């Protein structure tokens, strides 16, 4: 206790009298280590989280209802919908209907039958335009053209990967429509029946799942597919802010609705490989962070070691006049803790007030994701605790090495 108090006192005085440049240097090293620790893993995770968030907001919603195993559609969809309306936590939901169709474009300009037809096979989705736009961001990700107007009939939205000029990167992996623009007419064929639709807009999402889709209003879908019942293939649910999707999912699962369809939170419907990528990035972030920590600890070690070495005589004198080794070690630990706390404190402030807002406003544009910095307050504190711990060790070891030397040798500068 006495050792601690006097060590603190000595340490604080040394900080006060230390050269400004040394202080700045150490704090800068710690600051950059902290930022390296936070920013790199934060961006890596942010890439995945950005992608996940897009899938959530543009496709699946917070909770996603799918047909049960061995079923093609959700049972008693009408009853299910009525029930969902009674949940106060649910902001909106959008039933979707899917079926296979072909889409042909530019068939009027096709002069000879030997010309290759401009045709693709797609999974077409019927949506309620109003429910969909309340539930997902589909309305906001229409690139060319615009979203459905609920009063009109005969319009179609086509995902960009079905359009040649967007899908070039995929080469010949799947077919796409050449030379089609909003306003053009396409022919949609289901079985024997064909109908013409005017392209209203082209969906431009970074979530592939959305960009390969083709969307028409559900009324027209039902007519084309001759669906008598209202049983949907999928229902996307958006929760009101502040509710946890897993909690509400469990609540729905506990109700009788569980017998009608498979109720999943959106993470459960994310392909497993994305979750694996996130884990991998986590580990990568951890390793780069760990290397950063090691480099920082060595730097701090060297600075404190030189500092303590240059005060070797002073340390000898302190010991000679009866100051315990523990006290002197505490003095150096105090300095190390001071530097670590200031350094990571500035780091937290920069991350919180500069980096996070900046990346939120200017997300990095990756092909499959808009990445911003993904770092929790918790994660930041964990990292600063790691940094402080490492710094303390890096401060203690040199102090220990020098205080353990012979007192007289230290005073006389021998050896």
């Amino acid at each position: 206790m006495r050792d601690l108090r006097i060590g603190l006192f000595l340490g604080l005085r040394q900080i006060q009298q230390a050269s400004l440049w040394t202080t700045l240097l150490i704090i800068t090293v710690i600051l950059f280590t902290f930022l390296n620790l936070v920013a790199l893993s934060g961006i890596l995770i942010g890439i995945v989280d950005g992608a996940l968030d897009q899938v959530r907001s543009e496709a699946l919603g917070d909770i996603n209802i799918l047909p049960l195993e061995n079923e093609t559609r959700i049972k008693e969809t009408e009853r299910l919908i009525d029930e969902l309306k009674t949940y106060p936590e649910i902001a909106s939901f959008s039933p979707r209907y899917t079926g296979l169709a072909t889409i042909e474009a530019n068939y009027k300009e096709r002069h000879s039958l030997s010309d290759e037809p401009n045709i693709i096979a797609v999974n077409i989705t019927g949506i309620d335009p109003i429910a969909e736009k309340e539930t997902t961001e589909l309305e906001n990700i229409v690139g060319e053209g615009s979203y459905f107007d609920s009063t009109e009939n005969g319009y179609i939205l086509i995902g960009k990967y079905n359009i040649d000029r967007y899908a070039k990167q995929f080469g010949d992996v799947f077919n796409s429509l050449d030379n089609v623009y909003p306003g053009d007419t396409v022919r949609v064929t289901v079985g024997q029946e064909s109908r013409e639709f005017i392209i209203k807009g082209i969906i431009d999402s970074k979530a592939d799942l959305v960009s390969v889709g083709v969307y028409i209003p559900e009324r027209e879908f039902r007519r084309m597919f001759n669906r008598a019942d209202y049983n949907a293939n999928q229902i996307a649910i958006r929760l009101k802010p502040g509710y946890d999707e897993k909690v509400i999912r469990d609540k729905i699962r506990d109700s009788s609705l569980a017998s009608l369809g498979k109720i999943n939170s959106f993470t459960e419907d994310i392909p497993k490989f994305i979750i694996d990528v996130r884990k991998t990035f986590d580990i990568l972030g951890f390793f780069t962070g760990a290397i950063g920590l090691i480099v920082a600890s060595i730097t701090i070690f060297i600075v404190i070691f030189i500092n303590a070495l240059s005060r070797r005589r002073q340390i000898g004198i302190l010991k000679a006049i009866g100051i315990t080794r523990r006290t002197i070690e505490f003095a150096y630990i105090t300095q190390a803790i001071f530097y670590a706390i200031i350094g990571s404190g500035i780091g937290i402030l920069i991350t919180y007030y500069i980096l996070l807002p900046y990346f939120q406003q200017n997300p990095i544009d990756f092909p499959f994701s808009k990445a911003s910095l993904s770092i929790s307050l918790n994660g930041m504190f964990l990292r600063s605790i790691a940094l402080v711990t490492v710094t303390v060790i890096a401060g203690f070891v040199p102090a220990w090495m020098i205080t353990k030397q012979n007192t007289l040798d230290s005073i006389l500068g021998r050896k």
Partner: protein
Amino acid sequence: MKSITGINITKSYGKDELVTEVLRGINIEVHDGEFLAIMGKSGAGKSTLLYQLSALDKPTSGEIYIEGKNIADFSETELVNFRLFTLGYIFQDYALIPDLSAEENVLLPLLMRGLDWQTAKTKAQTALTSVGLINRDTNLPSQLSGGEQQRVAIARAVAGKPKIIFADEPTANLDSISGHDIIELLHDLHNKGQTIVMVTHESEYVEYCNRIIYLEDGLIVPEKCRLINPLPNYANTYLTTGSTL
């Protein structure tokens, strides 16, 4: 009463053929309340002897008793505590802690002794007053003259009222006026009963001492030792050599 008894102290450095014998069998006694000067030419082993007598170093052979305790028996912690509570040190180059003000330098060992801040501060102030530096207490060592720094060092050494004060050429870095001030301070302390062992070159200061021990090549030279102001309790048979054995 004997403050220090040194029996057949030797100290050598190096090993095998390269061994240097710096102290070659010193017998010495320091009495309670005595002001002892150790003199001799440069390289004679004066500092080395002082380090042994003041428990800063361990002799190669021989025994040293301080206040009746064999210092070889102490653990490292006990030794640190012993130095803290019983001994005071004054070095040639003052050896102040540059990060601490004059007052804090004096304060530090007092705090280490477990005194609370207020008591320690009062004692530090008293000690600084006694060396005439009370108005410089907030100055850092670098803001003090050499003489002033040495007076702070003396205040630091005496503030805790140690049994024995050791001083290795405390005036060597000072001009003669400052040097005299320092010796006067030590003399005052001695008059109040303080035991002091001092290494010095300057023969003009020896008149303040009770006794001089003269070293040459690691040995006491009896013919050159002198009794200046014998203590009242010195027996007639007390050896002027300082070596009672």
